[in-house]
Structure formats: structure tokens, C-alpha cells
């Protein structure tokens, strides 16, 4: 009896502590970004002018918002064919075989590689390939970052859709086969319609992960604080500019960086909420 009460009390206080931590984080982000929004208003979000020089300081987050959105969207597009075919392979064609188990393990392993290792590989291997293909500004830029991001989010997109695809009831598939459907027809008219919302949710979660990725992107994007005009231009992302500049920042600049952090927090929060909502609706 007594131990039950203690357990309950501990669990309750721990949950409250986590809630307070989250609330405190939001509070410090909001209070820290107030000076920036006071100084620039909503122009902070739509202005592309980032000029930290003392005397004529001006901060606009647009280059970083565009950089983050573009790299993540392109990464999602690049990752789609790879991870979709992988999840079909694992969840349908070779379901339960040893090949699928090994491949599944390898895909999960991709998720465990630290960001900085992807960055190093991108810097020393991927970038020289880009240069020899003549892509972009000396191999740096939006596209190179998107490519590395695509590889990084493959496991997140794959594992969820793989699970959903293997959960499609066998009765439905067998019914389709008994009607004379080919395997391709079963995939397009039974599996994909049934697993659609789960697959979409998987990609949204993977997208949310791409938004906040910092280290590997910083090493490859070129860190140019301008709104990129093309896929092969250098640019910068929200997470990357914060990581780069917070050290020596103070005053209005620090507040602007915190405001970018708040915007990133809001964007990833919304994206994750949409993903969770779709999963909930499906189940």
C-alpha cells in the first residue's frame, strides 16, 4: 500500500518536473526574443537582411527560414523513393526473411550514426564528388546539404512505413491475389491505400527531424547569410546560424538568435503535431 503511494508520488513529481522544464524552455525562448520582435516587428520574419555590423545592426530571419525549409523539403523528396522502396522491400516483398532482417538492421544503424560523422563524410567524400560533377559553389550548398539530410532521415521514414506496411491485413492481400491481382496491383490498390496515413506520418516525422539538424548541415551548406536564389547556391539554416553565432553574440543579435530558435521550435512543433495527429486518426 505504502510503496504504491510512494511510486505514485515519485511519478507525479517527475512528470511535473518535465512539464516545468518544457514550460521554462518556452518561457526563456519567448522572453529572450522579445527585444528582437520589439525592434523589428513581424519584419523580422520576412526580411532577408542580416547585418550584424555594429552601428547599423539589422536582423531578418528569412535567409535561415528559407534555407531550413528548402533543405528539408529537398531532402524529403530525395529520401522518398529510397525509403519507400526500402520499406516495401522490408515490409512486403522479403518480409520475415534473413535478407530483410539484415537490411532492416543496417537501416536502423544509419539512425545511430552521430550527425558530426555524417558531416565529416559529407565534407571529405560527398563534396569532392559534387566538385567533380561540377555542382554548386565548390561543392558546398543547399543541394549537398539536402543530400546528406536525405540519407540521415531515411531510417526515420523507413522504419515507420515498414511497420505500417507489414501491418496491412493478410486477408485483404489474399483476397486481392485470389481475384487474380499481380503483386504490383496488390501494392498499388491494397497496401498503399491501407497504409497511406501511416506512411505520410512517417515522412512528416522524418521532415521534422531534418528541420532541426545542425552539425552536418553547418559543415556543408556554406554558411552564407543571404536568401539562396538557387538549389546549388550556398545558404544557411536556422539551427546552423544559431550554432555558429551564439558564442560572441550579445544584445540585439543574441535576442535575434533566440527569436530564430523560437521560430524553429514553433515550426518543428507544428510539423510533429501534424504527424502525430495523422497517426492518431489512423489508429
Amino acid at each position, binding site marked *: 500500500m505504502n510503496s504504491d503511494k510512494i511510486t505514485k508520488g515519485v511519478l507525479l513529481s517527475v512528470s511535473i518536473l518535465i512539464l516545468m522544464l518544457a514550460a521554462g524552455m518556452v518561457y526563456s525562448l519567448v522572453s529572450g526574443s522579445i527585444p528582437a520582435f520589439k525592434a523589428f516587428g513581424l519584419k523580422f520574419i520576412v526580411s532577408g537582411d*542580416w547585418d550584424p555590423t555594429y552601428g547599423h545592426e539589422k536582423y531578418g530571419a528569412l535567409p535561415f527560414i528559407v534555407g531550413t525549409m528548402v533543405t528539408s523539403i529537398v531532402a524529403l523528396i530525395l529520401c522518398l523513393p529510397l525509403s519507400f522502396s526500402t520499406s516495401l522491400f522490408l515490409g512486403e516483398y522479403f518480409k520475415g526473411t534473413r535478407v530483410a532482417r539484415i537490411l532492416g538492421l543496417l537501416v536502423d544503424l544509419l539512425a545511430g550514426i552521430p550527425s558530426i560523422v555524417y558531416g565529416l563524410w559529407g565534407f571529405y567524400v560527398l563534396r569532392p564528388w559534387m566538385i567533380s560533377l561540377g555542382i554548386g559553389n*565548390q561543392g558546398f550548398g543547399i543541394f549537398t546539404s539536402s543530400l546528406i539530410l536525405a540519407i540521415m532521415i531515411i531510417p526515420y521514414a523507413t522504419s515507420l512505413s515498414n511497420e505500417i506496411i507489414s501491418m496491412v491485413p493478410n486477408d485483404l492481400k489474399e483476397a486481392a491475389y485470389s481475384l487474380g491481382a499481380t503483386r504490383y496491383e496488390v501494392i498499388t490498390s491494397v497496401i498503399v491505400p491501407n497504409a497511406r496515413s501511416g506512411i505520410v506520418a512517417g515522412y512528416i516525422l522524418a521532415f521534422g527531424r531534418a528541420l532541426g539538424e545542425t552539425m552536418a548541415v553547418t559543415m556543408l551548406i556554406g554558411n552564407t547569410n543571404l536568401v539562396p536564389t538557387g538549389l546549388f547556391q550556398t545558404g544557411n539554416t536556422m539551427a546552423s546560424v544559431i550554432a555558429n553565432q551564439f558564442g*560572441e553574440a550579445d544584445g540585439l543579435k543574441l535576442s535575434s538568435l533566440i527569436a530564430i530558435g523560437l521560430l524553429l521550435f514553433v515550426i518543428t512543433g507544428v510539423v510533429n503535431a501534424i504527424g502525430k495527429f495523422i497517426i492518431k486518426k489512423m489508429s
Partner: protein
Amino acid sequence: MRVLLSFVLAVVLFTSCQNSAKKSGKSGEASSNVKLTAAGATFPMPYYNMLFKKYAKETGVETTYGGIGSGGGIRSLKDKVVDFGASDAFLNDQQLAEMPAKVLHIPTCMGAVVIAYNLPGVDGLKLSNELLEKIFMGEITKWNDPAIKSNNPDLKLPATDITVVHRSDGSGTTFIFSDYMSKISQKWNDAVGRGKSLKWPTGMGAKGNPGVAGTISQTNGSIGYVGSEYAFAQKIQTAQVQNSSGKYILPSIESISAAAKGDIPADTRVSLTNSSDPDSYPISGFTWIILYKEQNYNNRSKEQALATVKLLNWIEGPEAQAEASKVNYAPLPQAAVEKAKAILKTVTYNGEPLLK
């Protein structure tokens, strides 16, 4: 930021307290009770750490230094959580007025910003003021541009694109570089100006000296700026830069020290870029330790204050200055040492000078 900073300092203080507890249990020497805490610029950190270690061995006074950046060093002194701070840029009049008490600047050594480039087979690149402006403003985009050729008639320059690499993080290195550029180019001064981070007209950013140097070494046709202490240690290919006398000078310990041979104001707050000395490398500067003139604050003991001043006086001495070049910093010229020692004599405790 301030919360983070105070956390870092709390950790530093806490660990140093632990050390002192351990030590006093063992030996019980009077001098080992004094612990100094300092924080600031990362640029002179290897030099300071070496000096503090040496000083601790000789006198028993241990100093903990946190490399948290020049801005952090100034904030820490303002919050009175350190015995002294360190900064690569001197406090301007407005910053001095914002401090709670009078602050003194003590130069400790010199460093420079070198122009590093990656052009295989091209040695001894000479950069005039005009070329530096045009390359870093993005007006020249090819290495075989007539402007570069006419300045370097002996070199075989390829038709490679110029890729400018700059710092992506805020840095005193960027400040010294942009301070120099603002002095030699009106156009740069109007369009970009000086600061620890800038609105770059061209090029790409990389983090820290290692990031910039690494990107340059990996990128054919790139050019950028790197702190001299890092460039010397890594033996990076550097360009000769035209100084105010028109001479082309390679950065070296001697040519950097020469930049401080001219007139220095009594408070040593001076930018040494584009120095008038004919043998000086023009993108050079001091790095400073900053401390309060009146040392009795925050209940500091007189012992603590005396240890602070004695340490700084030792840093200005021949033994410590001789160590500078061993770790690729340039020692102070004698005139600057005299000025620094004179300033230290004005440091007081309850109004009385600590050094005689």
C-alpha cells in the same frame, strides 16, 4: 547566455574550490591558498594556459582560465565573477562607461591575421590594398584577372574561380581583419564595416580557424583569413600583404611585433592594423587582459589582489614574453612592456598602489 555563462563560471569556481580543498589538506603552504579565476578570449588561450602552468610551478598560485570568447570575458568582469578578463578587442569609450568601475587594459602579446590561399604551384602571392578590397568585395572572381596578374608578374596564375572563405562564427580574428579592411578601403568601410561578424558581400563561412583553414586546404582556388597562431602552427601557405609603406610583408613573429613599434597611447587602447612601421605586417594587433583599477570589490582579500597584479607583472617580464614565440605568438616590443608595467603600478587596493 548570461545564465549559461554564470553556470560555466560556477562550475569553474566549484572545481577550483575542490582543488584547493585537496591541496591544502596535503601541503598547507600559505601561497597555495590563492586561486585566481579568469575568462575571456580564445585566441591567446594556449599562451595563457602555458604561462599559468609555469607560474603555478614557480609560485604555487594557480590560475583557472575559461576560454569563453572576448565578449564573455568582458561580461564576466562586468559581473565581477573573475579576477581578470581577457579580450582581443579593447573596450571602446561607451563600453568603458558601462562598466561598474574603472577598467585597465594590459597588453600581453601580439597576434595577426594571415591571408591563406590554395593555389597549387603558386608561391609568393603578393596582395596590394586594392587587390584585397576587390577580392573580398567579390569584384574579382578569377585568379587570372589582369589586376592580380599585373601585381604578380612572375606568377603563373590559373583561370580558377576565386572562392572566398570567411568565419561563420563571431570572432576577434574577423574583427582585426575587418578593422584593417576598413582602414585601407573606403568602399569596404561604407559597405561592410568592422565587427566580430559581418554582412559578407561574397564567399562562404566556416567555423573557427580550423574550419576556415580546413575548407581552404580542401578547396582549389580558395582564399581566406586565419589567426597567425594557428597558421604558423599548421604551416599554412600565406600571402604577402602590402603595408602602409608600400612594402610587401610576409607574416612572421618579427614583422608582427614590429607593428607595435610606433606610438602607443598611455592606456594601450589602440588598433595596430595598418601600422606606420615600415617593417610591420599590417594585419596585427594586441590582445589584452582587462582588470579593475580598484581591486577591492566583491570582498576580495588584499592577498588575492596582490596575487593578481604580481601575475600580470610577471607576464610582462622577459621570462614570460620569451615563451610567446614558442607557441607562435609575437612578444611585445619593449616600449609596450614599459607602458603595461606603468599601468600595473596604478592598480590599487583601498586606494593604495599594490606594486611599488
